[in-house]
């Protein structure tokens, strides 16, 4: 479960302070799929960065499973990311000098897990790429790269998966495949899934859709295919 209380983000600009995100409260219960939508510059990515502990809020408190992450240092955050949060990005962000399999191996090795190779191989198979493990990112298509990225995000079996425009760089059919993969992960593992997306199709499958505009939450609605969640609130 993720809890945000009075979280805001302001940055200095030429003339004074610019507010990117106005104070907001948000609770994401475990196991749900939450989509954050909104036009460019509405603060979607900023909100995702804050949720992940990649950025620190100007005010407010963020807790993951009851632990305040705003007080954590860089290395503690790195450990948190490695074990409890998986990331999927719009531009895939695979390590270009490593093969697909090695990209999946890295988080397991960092966490010091055992049976790394077997586990990475199994994950690649799960995303349908067991034949491509020895290929480098530059030798893979966009869809394949994104599947490797998902396998990597799941490497340490994290309870939380954060995805930034995961289909933004893919054609419709490939994007569809990636959405299925992510939803499958949510269903089978009970992984909480938070997505930032422009993609109406993707937003439609979420439990909750949080719409942002100019740094404020303008609506929170249940996704088209699911029931509204009672735990979600916004100020």
């Amino acid at each position: 479960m993720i809890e945000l209380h009075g979280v805001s983000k302001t940055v200095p600009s030429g003339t004074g302070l610019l507010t990117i995100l106005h104070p907001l409260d948000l609770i994401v219960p475990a196991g749900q799929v939450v989509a954050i939508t909104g036009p460019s510059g509405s603060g979607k990515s900023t909100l995702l960065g804050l949720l992940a502990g990649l950025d620190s809020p100007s005010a407010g408190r963020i807790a993951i499973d009851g632990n305040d992450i705003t007080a954590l240092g860089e290395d503690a955050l790195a450990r948190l990311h490695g074990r409890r949060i998986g990331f999927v990005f719009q531009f895939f962000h695979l390590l270009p000098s490593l093969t697909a399999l090695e990209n999946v191996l890295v988080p397991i090795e960092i966490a010091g897990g055992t049976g790394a190779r077997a586990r990475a191989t199994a994950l690649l198979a799960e995303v349908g790429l067991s034949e491509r493990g020895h290929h480098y990112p530059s030798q893979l298509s966009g869809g394949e790269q994104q599947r490797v990225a998902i396998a990597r995000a799941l490497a340490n079996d994290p309870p939380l998966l954060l995805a930034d425009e995961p289909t933004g760089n893919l054609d419709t059919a490939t994007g569809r495949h990636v959405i299925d993969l992510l939803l499958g992960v949510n269903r089978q593992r009970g992984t909480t899934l938070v997505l930032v997306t422009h993609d109406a199709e993707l937003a439609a499958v979420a439990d909750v859709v949080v719409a942002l505009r100019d740094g404020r939450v303008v609506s929170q609605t249940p996704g088209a295919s699911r029931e509204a969640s009672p735990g979600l609130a916004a100020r």
Partner: protein
Amino acid sequence: MGFVLRMAGRELRASWRRLIFFFICVAVGVAAIVSLRSIIQSLRVGLVREARSTIASDVLVQTNRPWTPEVAAALDERLGRAPIEGRSASIETATMARAENGAAVARMVELRGVEPGFPFYGTLALEGGVPYTHALVANGGALVRPELLTQLGVAVGGRIVIGRRTFVVRGVIDQEPGRRVGGFSFGSRVLVDLADLREAGLLSFGSRASYQILLKVREDGVDPLTRDIRRTFRDRFVSARSYKSTEDQIGENLQRAENFLSLVGFVIVVLGGIGVWSVTRVFVRQKMRSVAILKCVGASTAEVLATYVLQVGVLATAGSLLGIGVAALAMRAIPASLAESFGGLAYGLTLSAVAQGLTVGLLVSILFALVPLLEVRRIKPLMLIRGADLTQATPTAGTDGAPPQGRWRAAIARLDWVQIGTATVVGAALVGVASWQAGSWRTGVAVSAGFAGVSAVLYGAAFALVRLVQPLAAAPWFPLRHAVISLRRPGNQTRVILLAVGLGSFFVLGVRALQENLISEVSVGTERGGADMFLIDIQRDQVDGVRALVVDRLGPSADPIRLVPVLRARVTSVRGREINLATPGEVRGQGSLAREYTITYRDHLEANEEVSDGTFWSDGGGPATAAGAEVSIEQSIHDRFNINIGDDMRFEVLGRQIAARVTSVRRVEWAESRAGGFMFVFRPAALADAPHAFVGFLKGPGDATARSRLQFDLVSRFPNVTTIDGREVLARIQSVLDNAVLGISIVGGVALLSGVLILVGAVAMTKFQRVYEAAILRTLGAATRLLMITLALEYAALGLLAGLIGAAGALGLSWGVARFVLDITWRPAPGLLAAGALLTTALVGVVGVVSSAEVLRKKPLATLRAE
């Protein structure tokens, strides 16, 4: 740790190509250090081994005047108390040799008369493997070098005449211990029996000869005896040296040479380090995204840093090993002539040089890579979402409007103390390495301070340049406008290029300027013209005969021979003040007043002299005067020892005390002193009837046959007179100098090559900055030509500034080293420095454009996609 190792391995697999230049920088530097140091060390090992045979004894006692009964008795008394195991006398003198029947040629030789027992150490190798025994020279035998036989047209068994005595050639010397082929000598060696040498009539009055006693001494007695003789006889011009002091003296010179060359090697490594720094900076920029990803999947900053430091370490090790390989190859490529001139020793890599090269290579690469690598600490995984350029790690916006005080506070808050601390530690470590390599803290600190000074100037110049070109940003010409914008945009490469190129050109031009100074120093005085044959040891009763013979051979129209009386004297007091003697060796080395001077007397000034104070002989210099003895001193004597007109001086001339009053100071143009220059010139009256010899100067015939004919005739008529053929001596000096010049040029060449190589790379590395911009400009319609001009302008401006600052630094460096280290006349070499600055400009401009050619050729979309 397992992760760090595995990750470093995987990264290296992919990135070694990008880091190949890193690798080359380290290899070049290490190769320089290892080869330069190995050469010197091989040389030293050989010389130490040879030390005993160099002087053929344990202790060598020597004087350049005949043993007086008093000195001989005192010496015998001293030696009687020491643990002497063998004793043998020897005399060495330069003289003339000719064939008894054969070619009418006379050659200058270095004659050595020896007694049984010689040599106590080392072997005199004779041709045909004949073992040397004293019987070979006893009773009129001579051993000679093969070249003399050829020159005189004599074979073994033939007879040669030296002085008034005839010798039978009984063998040919292949190698004499302690005598170096390329070393300077007046002539080839002739070895005879000491008793025969004495009979040859060469040791006439004032002859130049070295009287030696060779001693074989029990090991524990060597040092005490040497010290004792030095102390007891120092004021009687008797010197003593042991094989140990030979070793020390040569060893010290070599140590100095080794440290100097190592320092040159170290500076090359530092240049390599600058290359390493430049590569690592670019590398870190390229790796930012990967670092962010690693941090995103849970790697700590320490783990990421360790991964990259490990890569640097592996590459540095590999580079160092390659450098050692290159050094090994270079050693084989050393010209045989050079090896021979230093005694024909075998050159090879020495273990200690290899160890030092490896250590310095690793240390310098890691030190230089560390500061840019620390940037990875600032990379935040957030960039993966925001796509932000995190080169400016902390937002700088917002401070612009703040009051100045707040701006300062913000600036201080922005300082990265870890990086500053690391840079300080790295700097201190570099000073340490420099001092270690130079073998002295003073030199190490001086060199580091020089580097730091030039770096500071370059850093300041970068700011000044950006300010200075500011108005041009509004220039109407597009390429100029954009070149200026590039120079001052955020995250520009202005400082990096200025630092790398400026330091590089500073060092390369500095070494080059020094090289020119060294070479012009050694070629001074070898220009032709004036007298080129010198006759020494002409006795008074031979003066008329020699003059007549020369007129007879050269004809009455030729320049007559100039005969100059010479005496040896030393100053015993000035204004009644005693001159205290240090040891003769010390005196000679330091140019103290108490050394022995060659003096003359005459009634006129020479063409290369002018009186700067007083009058040259008060009443016109007539021989008869009641004024008492007068002496004219040279300007430098006046300046250095504060001796003035009217001072009374006392001289000891051949045992006689002569008092003289200083009546004039002369300035001698030493560069034109081929006809002789004297510190002290006496008025004729005082010395004319003292016993003395003459030196003759004449311009010999141009034709070589006529020259040797003249030498032969002179020596046949006047056996004790030695003729020095200036041309031959010059040729011999030239061949020694050629080797020195070759050596200097090799070191300079290595420095130049490595410097240029590293500069090219450092500049080429900055192209990654240009790629993206060039691509965008292309999409906006900029033609290749326009982009090239823009790039060329930008790089050339940087090159010019760096070249000028480097040249100015080099000017200072060459002056300082010439004046304080090498003690030679400094020449500014303006042509070289101007050419250097221009070449730097052209080089940086061309390299900048060429290395970006790939960018200019590439379709812009490919570049933009890749970004």
